[in-house]
């Protein structure tokens, strides 16, 4: 429950919004789906992003730009219409129930790394970049988390993904019923040329350290054809480490993650035929 004195701001310029969030007790508000999970009684103000014109999705040169204000539904519809990023589309389509997807924004799914977000693994796997306001740089999503940019005061303006038609992106989300938080999200991105795997990126979220990239598994795949040996080697290095949780044991989750990993590899084999 929020205080009676909460102030609302509807800035039309990002610079205005930035000035506001630098003040104590004022934060950004996008879709609103985390509001009651973080019952911030000391909140003084909310900065609504709906007038900042951040809900664009378009192709710009070799990149696809997704505004941070886009909802998951917006992105899914775009992906379906343009037949791009099937994996990303699938990840988002699986993420949460239909009405929640109509409200969860891309920016809201990235800011502060919420536990329910399904966006991180596909974006890191796709080597997506974030353009931020308040910090004059473009960061890869991976660095955004690793270098703790996530903790600074900034506004995510847009996500930049290279529109590479050679890229195959496959994502698996694991949960039991639809309206719950994902138990983990696994995303694998590959490029295939002449039956040789290249530029693979294997990312999982829901693990210790928020996310993990399996660089050794990637190395085992890169430059090779998808033989049983190669798959086995890659598998060997795929060892996600999960937190202990009262709901699901780390062993169970590790087991299922391995199953999903093999799932994805087998799907790739099918695609390659």
């Amino acid at each position, binding site marked *: *429950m929020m205080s009676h004195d909460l102030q609302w701001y509807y800035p039309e310029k990002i610079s205005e919004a930035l000035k506001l969030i630098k003040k104590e007790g004022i934060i950004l508000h996008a879709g609103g789906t985390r509001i009651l999970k973080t019952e911030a009684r000391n909140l003084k103000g909310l900065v609504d992003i709906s007038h900042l014109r951040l809900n664009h999705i378009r192709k710009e040169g070799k990149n696809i730009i997704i505004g941070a204000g886009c909802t998951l539904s917006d992105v899914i519809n775009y992906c379906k219409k343009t037949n791009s990023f099937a994996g990303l589309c699938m990840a988002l389509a699986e993420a949460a129930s239909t009405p929640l997807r109509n409200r969860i924004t891309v920016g809201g799914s990235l800011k502060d790394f919420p536990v329910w977000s399904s966006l991180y693994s596909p974006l890191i796997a796709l080597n997506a970049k974030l353009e931020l306001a308040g910090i004059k740089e473009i960061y890869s999503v991976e660095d955004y988390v690793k270098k703790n940019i996530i903790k600074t005061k900034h506004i995510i303006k847009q996500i930049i993904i290279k529109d590479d038609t050679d890229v195959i992106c496959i994502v698996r989300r694991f949960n*039991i*019923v639809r309206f*719950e938080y994902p138990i983990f999200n696994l995303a694998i991105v590959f490029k295939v040329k002449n039956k040789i795997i290249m530029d693979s990126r294997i990312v999982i979220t829901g693990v210790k350290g928020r996310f993990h990239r399996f660089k050794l598994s990637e190395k085992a795949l890169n430059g090779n054809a998808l033989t049983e040996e190669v798959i086995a080697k890659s598998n060997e290095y795929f060892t996600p480490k999960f937190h202990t949780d009262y709901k699901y044991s780390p062993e169970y989750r590790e087991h299922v993650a391995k199953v999903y990993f*093999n799932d994805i590899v087998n799907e790739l084999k099918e695609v390659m035929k």
Partner: protein
Amino acid sequence: MKNYDSEKHVKGESQFVDDLLTPMGLLHIIVFASSVAHGKILKVDYSEALKSNGVAGIITAKDIPGENQIGGIIQDESLLAEEYVHFIGQPIALVVADTILHAKDACAKIKIEFEKLPVITDPREAFKKGELIMPPRVFACGDVENTWKQCDYVIEGIAESGGQEHLYLETQGAFAYPLETGGIKIISSTQGPTQVQRASAKVLGLPMNKVEVDVTRIGGGFGGKEDQATTWGCVAALAAWKLNKPVKVILSRQDDMRMTGKRHPYSSDFKIGLSKEGKILAYQVTFYQNAGASADLSPAVLDRTMFHAVNSYYVPNVKATAISCKTNLPPNTAFRGFGGPQGMFVMEAALYKAAEAMGMEYRKLQELNLMKEGDEFYYGQTIENSTIQKCWQETISKYDVDSIQKRVNEFNKKNKLFKKGFSLMPVCFGISFTNTFMNQASALVHVYSDGSISVSTGAIEMGQGVNMKIRQTVASVFSVNIDRVKMESTNTTRAANTSPTAASAGADMNGKAAEIASHNILERLIKVAAEKLNVKETSLIEFRDETIYLSGKAELTWFQLVQVAFLSRTNLSSQAQYAVPGIHFDRTINKGKPFAYYAIGSAVIEVTLDCLRGIFEFDSVKVVHDYGKSFSFVVDRGQTEGAIVQGLGWMTIEEIIYNKEGKLLTDALSTYKVPDIHFTPKEIEIEFLETIENVAGIKGSKAIGEPPLMYGIGAFFAILNAMKAFNPDKEYKLSAPITPERVLCELYSENVLVSV
């Protein structure tokens, strides 16, 4: 025949407690509850809270004018904790303020100190420490001890079933206000208005006639509002009385999940003895019931567990010991099935294990031991016109179970990582409250001078269609259009001393009471008609389609007759009570005829198990059920489908987890998994058995609320069968819920996960 409120529901016009128009000056209650599972209250400081914005008062046990006691069967439950607390979520004080936000803010300012005491959450541990709700009970017949040596096989084991959160979509709540005539009116989301009335009157030190409880409908009950709604009704009544203002208490979903009791988890030891042909000769079982911190309905739940300890089977020698264990958890309560499913689960588990040990097929063992006509249950009752065999045979033939078996076996031969499993589940569920005195209901029927009809009963509409059934019954007695009949809200001033709407018996008993009352009026109207038409022989008079016929000729309209009756000062109202005849149970020897009749059926359930992920899909649930002469296929089918899905959830994904300190960890919808639309079986097929009228039910129908839930038990064994197909050498634990994680952990040995 649709539900009475359907049109209102789809238009958003149906009102629940929190929707009611409330008067100005309404105050809101937030309940300050215990944060420790067992402790002594050393010090509470309300001073800061009392100074908080908008606070009208903070009410504690000291302010209770009457008795601080809301226990039903056993008087062991206080409304507000005084010196000790016994579970996390136990109410200690009521913070009443002008807005919910102000009440919450004030609640956060209360300072409390506890001396922590040891916490027990496991029923067997409670038993060892002598923490019992009441002394253990034993139901027995024959001589179990001396039969073991006659058995070719004696199998022992442990079976466990978990709790289940009701998750009625409308959370607990009540709205109360003081009446000018002295006394309190409470609008409560309850299945038992008389229970709320009685407890509130006791708490306020008032006679029952000064407390009025009114209920129009509730947004789901499932047993969770049979006894547990009483707490919140009393909370509202107490605050309204103390502050002399209208007050409302509505629990948030998380508070509801944390503070209220659920289905009793059971841990049971079984021992079953069979002949080499597969006939059960003896069955011994000890049930450890996790009752929570106070009795609530535990003794009655325990009763029913014992009554259904042998499900649909004939067992000549039985000894069932039932122990209600006191733990530091919210008092567990009624939930669809009321202990029956838990008892049946152990029986099926015992048979399953026996089949394994004997190398026999589980379904053959089930079939061999099904009750036949004339067989007696071990507590002394026989089933009249038993359809147990018929339902079972019909299930096998109609759904071609032999083909299902063949198909499942072939699939399993061909597929390595996906396995199918199927299982049959017979159900035989006694209909009546196990406490005989509760098998009564009353109705009040008015025929107004314009021909419209008003019906009040003790039945609560919670979506099970009871209002529709009673309305239809009354309309058919008078042979009038159903639109003439209005179902009134359930109110203690119109139906007194009622039993809660539970035990699937609401429609039967209240329907019969309404039928009797209507017939009383009908008799008088027939006499009026005879007099008006100058006829001595009343059998020549016929009521049909709102018209009164004499020897086949239309003479009067319904309206005209009612007018004549009114002007001749005939009594157009009637109150009637119905007590279920022929039932009795002697608790000194635990024998008798406690049930009016039995609800019977069989189901076959097919699942597909993903042996790599542990997740499963229900391919089909196919049922043959004896509904008697159903008079609403839509309502009966709807109840069956809903109950089945709830039963499947109980056995598979609904898992309640408390930590060792007694804190509920699965206290939100994100952590407690309830069936969503993707969970439902791909196919649910229901056949209404061709059978005779059930004279003990209204219009020949049979009760339908609880029985179909138990078909869900079959899903557990279907999954176990699929697991066996994958790894036949393992001995699987008979412990529900069988979540996907448990499946995986059972399929593979402890530390070695399969190399994929």
